[in-house]
């Protein structure tokens, strides 16, 4: 059992470990059935499968939105299935999340939208300024920091969400269908941003965009009806 962040400054080999995890919902439907997998530190992984295969359930278990019915989950050295686990906030501060519907704050400008990710963890104002500018530059929005979301396209909104997810030294970036609401060209632009994170963060992307998965040639976990049916180190994927 791993309790808290016991590794100090050492790099971890395994960032995420699911061991025989099952999730049954109260009405009886099984979202995940006895699945086990490991994701290494700084690994780039696609979770693929049809709707209802269990992709989002896995992501929500990583962020502690839902708990497994049985099995063990370790994320960034936190044993989140431990009965005494009380570091949900610390864990979430290590994870950047990106949603299909962007979840940008409509009454805040782009700078503020990204800065909120740093404010919640108590970062200094001067550091917030530097880090937000750097993140906006990475996603190609450095000239739009004072623009409000209503003035941005869907692709730009997703860039904002990515910038928000990567600031604050977050070890893990998880994205649930990040290109689901985007046209093919914009989707590719977004994926290029994810590509820049390769080798620097642990990135987990849930998608059913076969073109993107196949062209990236990264690890692919294929899910079907709550089970992992394929785990390819440099995989492709067919629906």
């Amino acid at each position: 059992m791993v309790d808290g962040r016991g590794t100090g400054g050492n790099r971890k080999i395994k960032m995420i470990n699911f061991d025989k995890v099952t999730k049954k919902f109260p009405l009886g439907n099984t979202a995940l059935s006895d699945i086990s997998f490991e994701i290494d530190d700084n690994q780039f992984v696609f979770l693929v499968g049809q709707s209802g295969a269990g992709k989002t359930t896995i992501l929500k278990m990583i962020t502690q939105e839902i708990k497994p019915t049985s099995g063990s989950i370790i994320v960034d050295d936190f044993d989140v299935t431990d009965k005494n686990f009380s570091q949900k906030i610390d864990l979430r501060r290590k994870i950047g999340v990106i949603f299909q519907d962007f979840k940008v704050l409509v009454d805040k400008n782009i700078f503020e939208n990204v800065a909120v990710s740093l404010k919640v963890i108590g970062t200094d104002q001067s550091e917030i300024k530097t880090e937000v500018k750097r993140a906006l530059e990475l996603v190609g929005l450095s000239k739009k920091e004072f623009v409000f979301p209503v003035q941005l396209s869907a692709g730009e909104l997703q860039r904002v969400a990515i910038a928000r997810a990567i600031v604050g030294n977050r070890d893990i970036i998880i994205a649930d269908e990040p290109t689901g609401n985007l046209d093919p060209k914009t989707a590719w632009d977004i994926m290029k941003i994810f590509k820049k994170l390769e080798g620097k963060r642990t990135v987990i992307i849930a998608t059913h965009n076969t073109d993107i998965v196949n062209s990236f040639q990264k690890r692919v976990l294929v899910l079907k009806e709550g089970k992992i049916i394929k785990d390819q180190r440099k995989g492709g994927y067919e629906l």
Partner: protein
Amino acid sequence: MRDIWTSIRRTPYQSFSAFLILFFTLFLTLILFVSLTFLYGTLNYLETKPQVTVYFQNKTPENQIFKVRDELMSSGKVLNIKYISKNDAFNIYKQLNKDNPLLLEMVSADILPPSLEIYAKKPIYLPEIAEYLKKQGDIDEVQYEKDIIDKLLVLTNTIRMSALIFFSYLILMSIVVLTTMILFKIALKESEITLLKLIGATNFYIRKPYVLESLFLGIAASTLSFSIFSFIVLYFNQFLQSYFKGITTLSVDIFNYQLTIWPLNYIFFTIVFVSISIFGAVIASVASYIATNKYLKV
């Protein structure tokens, strides 16, 4: 402060509704609070008035009267006893009838009875003291306004109980209505709260703006309630002056501090303002705390 104002501007109807509810509650509370304070003050005042007067027969020797007085004093139920001798009674009589020489000529000190004016510690001891006196020898008459005291006790107990029930209902109603108002407001920000939770915000960080806004509304509503109440009190000051004519001071005991409530004074008004502001801030904060709870379970 800027964030609070921005939030109010973005949801003006919900904020205004919350403000009106708070104002209504605090204004009623203020009236209730001040009325009860005056009621207690008046009760305290009445308790300092002579309550039982016992007239002895003319021939009763002074040492017999002093014996009764000493026994009463040692009972622990009496605050003070004033002995009025035949001569004292005659002097009082003369003072009362100084404009009527005919009445003065007809009366001498010999025909006036000596008496004791007994001040009880609490009105509830009065019947007991009166009964005790009636059993003593040499007593001519025991004057005790039983009906008035009984009615006063029943009335004050009823008012206290009614005020408590009404006050509790008022608090409950305001918290429920305010919570619902704030819930409407927060429902618009559910997505934002979920996001903040997922990126590691503490519950305190998420609650802070809502609680601060409620605090602001609570203090603003209590200030307005107090201003209107003060205006009404000052407007009716003449009426109050004539109503309390003859009463020099009314006071209540607050943690062993005698607070003067009449004549109206700045200390009393300051204490009322501080109390109502704290009360407003507390119920507004409790309501926003309960309302935010619903969305913090992510």
